[in-house]
C-alpha cells in the first residue's frame, strides 16, 4: 500500500507526461488559495493596528496641545 509511485524527481514532476500541466495547475491554484486566505487577514490586522496606533498618537498630541494652550 505504501509504495512510492515515482522513481525519480523528474518522473514525479512529469506526472505521467500527458497531463503534467493540468495536475500542477490544480496544485498551484490550491497553494495560491491557501496562502492568500492566510496572509490577507494578517495584512488587514496589521493595517488596522497601525491605523489605531496612529490615531491614538494623534489624539494624545491634540490633547497635550490643548493643555498647553490652557
Amino acid at each position: 500500500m505504501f509504495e512510492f509511485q515515482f522513481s525519480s524527481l523528474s518522473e514525479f514532476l512529469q506526472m505521467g507526461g500527458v497531463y503534467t500541466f493540468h495536475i500542477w495547475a490544480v496544485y498551484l491554484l490550491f497553494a495560491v488559495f491557501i496562502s492568500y486566505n492566510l496572509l490577507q487577514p494578517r495584512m488587514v490586522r496589521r493595517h488596522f493596528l497601525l491605523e489605531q496606533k496612529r490615531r491614538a498618537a494623534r489624539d494624545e498630541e491634540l490633547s497635550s496641545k490643548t493643555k498647553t494652550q490652557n
Partner: protein
Amino acid sequence: MWLWFAKLGSPRWFYELSDKWLPWLYVSMLILMSVGLFWALLIVPEDYQQGQTIRIMYIHVPVASISLACFPLMAVAGTITLVWKMKLADMVAQSVAPIGAWFTGLALATGAIWGDQIWGTWWAWDARLTSLLIQFFLFIGVIALRSAIDSPDAAAKACAVLAIVGAINVPIIKYSVEWWNTLHQPASNFSIDPVAPNPPEVWVPLLVMISAVYVFFAIALILRTRNEILQRERRSQWVIDLVTREKNV
C-alpha cells in the same frame, strides 16, 4: 445553557478564546496538510482509467465539499442574527461570504481543469456545474449587498435573509448528480474491501485532505472574524488596550 449562549455571543470572549485555539489549529493543519499532500502526490497509485490525473481529486473534492458547507453556515449565522440579534453571528456571516466565494471559485476552476481531461471540455451546462456556479454568484451577491447598504443593522438583516433564501441551492447542488443524469458523476461509495473500485488506499488520503481543508477553513474564518471584531469594537476599551499592548506591528 443560556449563560453559555450569551457568552458565546460576546465578541470579546470569542476573540480571547480564539487566541488559545489558533496555535493548535495551525499545528493540526500543518500536520494534516503535509501528510495528505505527500500521500496524494507520491503514494496513491495511478487510476486504471484516469492515470495520474486522479491526484486532482485530492484537491477538488475537499474544496468542493467544504464550499457546500459555507452557505448553510452563513444561513445559520443569519438566522441567529435575525432571531437573537447576536452581534458575533453577523460577524461570522460577513466573514464566511468571501471565504465561500473563494472555495466555490476554486472548486469550479479545479473542476474545469479536471473536466478538460476526463470529459474533454472545460465547461458544460451540467446540473452540478451550473448549480455550483449559481452558488458562486450568490456569495458575490451577499458581499455586494452588504457593501451596498450603509446602515450596518439593515445590511446584517438583508444579508441574513439572502443567506437563508439562498441556502435552498445547497441541496440542489448536493443532489443534482442524482436528480439529473448529466455529465458530472454521482458521489462514490467508500469500501474497506482492498479489491473494490474504491479501496482504502484511494479514500483514506482523501479523508486526510478533507480534514486538512476543514481545519484550514476554520482558521481562515476565525482570522477574518477576529478582524471584523476588532474593526467593529474599535472604540471599546478592551480593543484600545489591545492596540496599546501590541508592539510588533
